């Protein structure tokens, strides 16, 4: 009825291979972008930005990064928290060493540094695979957190061992520190999220992405048809870590402002991002957004229902949240291994035919 492609004739390759080939999809995408850029910044206040929009945007970047590695290249990583910490600490060192440089450059450089570290820890993936690799990435997680905890150079010898984001701006607008405007931080993160998504989407449908998927589906067969596993795996680690590093930098500098590494970037963070892409959908950029939105909104919703409506103490709600998240993971793996993204695809198929089922 509303959602159909009848009457859409594509006459060029360019039209045929665009990201949103169906007109309705394209308009929906432009509409979402329009709302995100032109409407939300004028309506938000601190509460909405800090409890929903910032975590959603930042986790979405991390989920895109991890999805490239796990969903597209098939290399399971439990080191996301550690790589986010690399991004955060790289950003902190850059911010304090070069106060006059724009935050954009700091965040991107933090991503580049994380990409290097990610490649280093990706090297073992050439020899080991499957959950052996998953456990090997735990080494990255624990080692990196320990490193940032124990070597004072990383936290500039501060007495508390914490890192605090100093006030930095870009184009004269404050982005970090305590005196920021809600809309400024929102727009700053939004730019990174949108650009990351566009880059990731175009990488994954190009030749690089097809190589990753070949490695994921069967690495030996991929090698035989001429995919170089060294470059494919290491590029996946590098690009994935780049996005994860950016999200770590934003998480620290824009969202939290002050970070204690074991608490903010511990093993639980790795699992959280992994859960996002499982629930959202492995191997889907939209799924990364859906999973991030779901796991950011779930605790907020549970808190509203449990604490505000039912009057339960907060610890019960926290425990219940663990139970629900765990059960959801299992339910999704059983019922819909491709996550929310697949549900969305099925819905779209249904909508195309609706209201006539045949």
């Amino acid at each position: 009825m509303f959602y159909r492609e009848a009457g859409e004739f594509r006459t060029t390759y360019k039209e045929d291979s665009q990201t949103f080939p169906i007109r309705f999809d394209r308009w929906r995408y432009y509409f979402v972008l329009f709302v995100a850029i032109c409407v939300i910044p004028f309506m938000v206040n601190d509460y909405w930005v800090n409890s929903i929009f910032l975590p959603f945007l930042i986790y979405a970047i991390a989920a895109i990064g991890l999805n490239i590695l796990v969903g597209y290249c098939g290399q399971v990583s439990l080191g996301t928290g550690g790589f986010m910490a690399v991004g955060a600490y790289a950003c902190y060192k850059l911010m304090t060493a070069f106060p006059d440089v724009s935050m954009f450059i700091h965040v991107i450089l933090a991503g580049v540094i994380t990409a290097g570290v990610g490649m280093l820890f990706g090297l073992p993936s050439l020899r080991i695979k499957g959950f052996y690799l998953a456990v090997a990435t735990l080494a990255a997680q624990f080692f990196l957190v320990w490193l940032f905890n124990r070597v004072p150079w990383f936290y500039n010898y501060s007495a508390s061992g914490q890192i605090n984001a100093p006030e930095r701006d870009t184009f004269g607008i404050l982005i970090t520190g305590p005196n920021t405007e809600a809309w400024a931080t929102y727009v700053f993160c939004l730019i990174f999220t949108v650009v990351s998504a566009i880059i990731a989407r175009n990488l994954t449908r190009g030749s690089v992405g097809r190589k990753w998927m070949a490695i994921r589906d069967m690495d030996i067969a991929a090698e035989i048809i001429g995919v170089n596993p060294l470059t494919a795996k290491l590029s996946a680690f590098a690009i994935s870590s780049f996005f994860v590093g950016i999200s770590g930098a934003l998480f620290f500098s824009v969202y939290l402002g002050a970070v204690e590494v074991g608490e903010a970037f511990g093993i639980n963070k790795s699992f959280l991002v992994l859960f996002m892409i499982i629930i959202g959908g492995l191997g889907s950029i939209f799924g990364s957004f859906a999973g991030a939105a779901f796991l950011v909104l779930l605790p907020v919703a549970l808190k509203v229902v449990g604490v505000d409506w039912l009057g339960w103490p907060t610890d019960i709600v926290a425990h219940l949240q663990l139970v629900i998240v765990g059960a959801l993971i299992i339910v999704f793996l059983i019922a819909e291994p491709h996550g929310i993204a697949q549900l969305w695809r099925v819905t779209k198929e249904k909508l195309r035919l609706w209201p006539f089922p045949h």
Partner: protein
Amino acid sequence: MSEAFLYTVEVFLNGLMAGVLYALVALGFVLIYKASGIFNFAQGVMALFAAMTLVGFQNGQVPFAHLINATFGLHVTNFGWNLHSVVAVFLTVLVMILLAWAVQRFVFRHLVGQEPIILFMATIGLAYFLEGLADLMWGSEIKTLDLCWSAGHCLPQGGNFWIEDMTAGLGGEGFYGFFIDSLDIVAAVVAMVLVAALVAFAQYTKQGRAMRAVADDHQAALSVGVSLNFIWILVWSLAGFVALVAGIMWGAKSGVQFSLSLIALKALPVLMLGGFTSIPGAIVGGLIIGVGEKLFEFLIGAPFLGGATENWFAYMLALLFLVFRPQGLFGEKIIERV
């Protein structure tokens, strides 16, 4: 003998003891992995769950007391009795068997034939679920675990004086003998008995033979009339029992608390070192990791690197080791075909 050397020996011995405890957790992993190909990330949380359930039964706590009170405005906390330890252990074993059945019935029956990595992620979900459930049932505060089978006969605490006295003569004036936790010695003995029992079970009983058949080839076992369902429940129950033993030992050592489930993470490098499919591998791997991390911390970590290297040493060791021998020390050779 110089004192520095003696202290190193003491660290070595303590590392061996810690390694035994790692091996205890790793055993549960190997059992499930061999029989069903599932890499059970939830093993550590199962140990936590078992220990909490045991303490809950011992103290006569009402399950879900917190939730019931918050929902209905009551103030129940306790049935008002203290169960004998043996009864409590028996009841906990029953709970673990029930859990094994539930896991099999509601989770893994629906995931038969999925890729191993999907199963692995399902066990991560299971770990979260169990952790939340354990906290909801018994409360999340740190509990002490005292296991007494009769009045005055409890799990020992503190250092072992006998060993200390016997070895005091080895060093000079400042050396008071090796300090070794009595509990660790008990744990070592229990681990040895457990391994012997498991090997005997797998080797000489009908059920054990069926278990090995399933581990070898699911379909062949199915075709000669072995019930996969039953074997998997059996294996998960055994793993639950091993988890209970590990939970008791760790719980008695450092209190029943959330960090117990992190110890399970330490069992992962142990397994990678020993190989996922080998029970002796789990033991040897546990000992190597235990000794390695204690010695590294004592000789290099604490003096030069700022300490707390135990957090990551095991993983790094396993990582480096795997690069050279991907199947672990005793694992079956990995052969890949297209």
